[in-house]
């Protein structure tokens, strides 16, 4: 097998060398203490209990499940996402604090998998949010899940896993796909553009015709009622 070695490009590094060491240290620590928010969107969730508990023991990698999105680092999408679920997945993703990583487990998140012709599922996850890593298979074994997580740890350590920046840089693209699926007046309570300014991640793709459309339909956040779906009807008297 012939291998083409990548020639390392030496770029002139700027900034304080001490800060570089510190950044490296931060990335190391970050990759060794990851909290998973697993949104059980589908079948793949059934292989996570074996991966988490004593047999395969995810905890020895420093990875633990976490129940609230705001404290989680990884969003695991375990399987097909129906359109109703996808709304909640996007909502959850936007609530998570940066830096955040998305892993798509099962073939369904890659291209629709078994349900390629289903009317109810979203086929490609990366049209709606940036995905760091896919673990293909129907369903992937716990070993594959662990191997995927180790790969992600390496990528976080080396600084490659920064797909969360893409969401801010190309917000218009992702918002456009979301609007195509959910309708023009789609709005989440998270203000992505303000957040992008905060992280200094404004790019050409951040604004576009879809964000203009969002501004037209946007309701002030205080008025946005976050009850999902139909209401519990008050008994009329």
């Amino acid at each position, binding site marked *: 097998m012939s291998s083409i070695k990548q020639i390392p490009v030496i770029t002139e590094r700027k900034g304080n060398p001490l800060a570089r060491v510190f950044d490296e240290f931060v990335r190391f620590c970050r990759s060794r203490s990851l909290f998973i928010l697993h949104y059980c969107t589908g079948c793949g969730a059934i292989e996570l209990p074996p991966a988490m508990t004593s047999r395969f023991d995810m905890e020895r990698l420093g990875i633990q499940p976490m129940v609230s999105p705001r404290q989680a680092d990884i969003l695991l999408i375990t399987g097909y996402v*129906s359109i109703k679920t996808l709304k909640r997945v996007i909502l959850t993703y936007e609530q998570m604090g940066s830096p955040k990583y998305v892993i798509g487990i099962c073939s369904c998140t890659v291209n629709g998998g078994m*349900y390629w012709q289903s009317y109810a599922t979203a086929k490609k996850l990366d049209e709606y949010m940036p995905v760091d890593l896919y673990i293909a298979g129907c369903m992937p074994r716990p070993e594959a899940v662990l191997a995927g997580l180790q790969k992600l740890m390496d990528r976080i350590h080396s600084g490659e896993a920064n797909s969360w920046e893409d969401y801010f840089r190309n917000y218009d693209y992702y918002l456009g796909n979301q609007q195509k699926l959910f309708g023009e007046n789609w709005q989440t309570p998270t203000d992505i553009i303000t957040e992008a300014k905060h992280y200094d991640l404004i790019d050409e793709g951040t604004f576009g015709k879809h964000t203009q459309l969002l501004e037209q339909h946007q309701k002030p956040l205080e008025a946005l009622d976050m009850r999902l779906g139909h209401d519990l009807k008050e008994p009329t008297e």
Partner: protein
Amino acid sequence: MRPENYEAQRHPPSNEFELNFGPNHPGIEGNYALKVKLHGDVVVEAKADGGYLHRGFEKLMEQRLWIQNIALVPRICVPDPSPMEVCYAMAVEELCGLDVPQRAQWLRVMQLELSRIAAHLFTFGGHAATTGMYSTMYWGVADRDLILDLFEEFTGGRVYSIYNIPGGVRRELPDGFLRRISETLDYIESRLPDYDNLFFKNQVFVKRAKGTGVMSQEQALAWGVTGPNLRATGLAFDVRRDDPYLVYDQLDFEIPTEAHGDAWSRTLVRRLELVESIRILRQVVAALPDIRGPIRAPIPNPLAWNVPVGEVYTRVESSKGELCYFVVSDGGPKPYRVHVRGPSSMHAVQVLEKMSVGSRIEDIAQTMFSLDACPPEVDR
């Protein structure tokens, strides 16, 4: 995020508040939600909110060949996939008038009972976790993995064993498999006293589960409850005994029942069923070496297989309850209509809604796990 017909409404001041329970909640089984209205800690009203896992199975099955659907159906119920494929294969066989060889029927019984043990162990784990006993969850998942290893060995798949085809099963047992299955059964049986001490006799569990989520036998029958949940109300009804399929009429087993119809009875029925399943499997292991012959009946070219016109209704006893398939064929290469009657649709919607009312909020998760509802099967 609001529905199109949404209108903001002002509610009169009250002590009640609404809570979205799920879909992403550690206490709920899978991707499923409940909207509960609370007064303090007590649930006043609960409304099931499903549809997060809807894939349109019944429509998808109309668009695929008869043989392709075998790979599709196990996905309906993820924790207990084997009864799905067996039931569908039985429906197609009945439509075609295929005679399944004896050995294939025994192998199917073995697959079904292994799957039942795995599903029950998993349910115990989940149920224990909702009452804060995580050790049982670790044990249950670990012991279930032993069954999954057996599945991997004799069907090729860890979770989805696409082992059946209309007319029989796909492959013969590997060498020495019966010995390994006996060893695993011995091990699981030796673990049961430990489970008793850790979970079933544990006062933390007994005090919380007794009197939680009670239903009477009349209510259970009116609500369409089947399986262990029905047997926990005192009625000994089991499709395996009352409408035998495969070779269950040649096997010797009991139908365990409990009288109270609460979460504790339901869990206890599953615990007793484990013993019965092990007993059935021992009989299968003893009988299999003497039953020789083919493992599948010859079928026509499956890619151009026109199944005769007809309607058929088959049912099996899955670990969650009675599972039925209604299959209609118009004589073409694909089913004309398939309807799946899953047990969980009744348990997770109407029963759970009614049981939650009056209970405290921390008991909702326990009620749901004690009903052993399977959300992917509710939504399909």
